[in-house]
């Protein structure tokens, strides 16, 4: 139930981003992208050290590597465009949801940890994809920022599919 609550909170946070689609500017989008990646890096670090299943452990490390790479590219672009990422309610909601997820995961062990982490990864990547499609990509004004979002979108799709495959294997 707690996992469900955390996932719901994150999904609602990203849906809220959609509600403010018109109000979001490039500086805020850059901040949301960096925050969304960082939230998954934090959870991935925890999974890399605490997961029991080697597959889940490896996936956690993969999330750290990939989202760190995406974040570096996002920060490099923001620097190049002299855009200072601006904090906003969506970023704050993402961060709060991420912290809550990590706090919840820390109370779990073994198979329960693995399942909660992977379930959250599935829901989280789906929610981020929805936000990319409905809010972030349509909302980006700068063509390079929009192109970066389009370019990294398949990574979220690949992670979602990978997480779903692990999710189904854990259930067996």
């Amino acid at each position, binding site marked *: 139930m707690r996992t469900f609550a955390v996932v719901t909170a994150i999904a609602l946070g990203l849906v809220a981003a959609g509600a403010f689609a018109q109000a979001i500017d490039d500086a805020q989008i850059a901040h949301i992208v960096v925050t969304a990646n960082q939230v998954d890096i934090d959870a991935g670090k925890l999974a890399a050290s605490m997961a029991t299943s080697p597959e889940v452990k490896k996936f956690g490390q*993969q999330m750290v*590597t*990939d989202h*760190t*790479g*995406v974040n*570096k*590219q996002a920060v490099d672009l923001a620097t190049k465009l002299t855009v200072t990422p601006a904090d906003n309610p969506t970023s704050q909601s993402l961060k709060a949801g991420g912290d809550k997820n990590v706090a919840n995961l820390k109370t779990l062990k073994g198979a329960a940890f693995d399942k909660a982490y992977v379930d959250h990864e599935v829901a989280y990547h789906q929610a981020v994809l929805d936000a990319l499609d409905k809010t972030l990509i349509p909302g980006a004004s700068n063509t390079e920022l929009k192109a970066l979002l389009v*370019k*990294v*979108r*398949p*990574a979220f*799709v*690949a992670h979602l*599919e*990978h997480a779903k*495959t692990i999710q189904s294997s854990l259930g067996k």
Partner: protein
Amino acid sequence: MPRRSSRRSASSRRALASLAAALGALAFCLGPSAAVETPQATTHTVVMDAVSFTPGVLTVKRGDSIVWRNQDPFPHTATSSAFDSQSIAPGQSWTYTAKTRGEFSYVCTFHPTMKGMLRVQ
């Protein structure tokens, strides 16, 4: 008897040496023209971008080289039963010379949804 046998094998050795020399000369004569007829090895590029291989299916000739170039901001691999690049860092490349004919489906071991196919003719 032993002396006759020895003479015969000495004569066989001379005959073999002559044959080898003749074959060597023939190979020397054929060598340059054979090289001209051999098609030049080509270098092909597969781009790793947006968690996919482009082109997804590549057909090459045996002896050709394939360069996998990673344009994503995170590492990938190109791994099959015949070859394994190991981790290719962002911005880096890995080259493989196709030695064996056949169809090789390959994946990125980090991203199992990322698949490609190399056909070596």
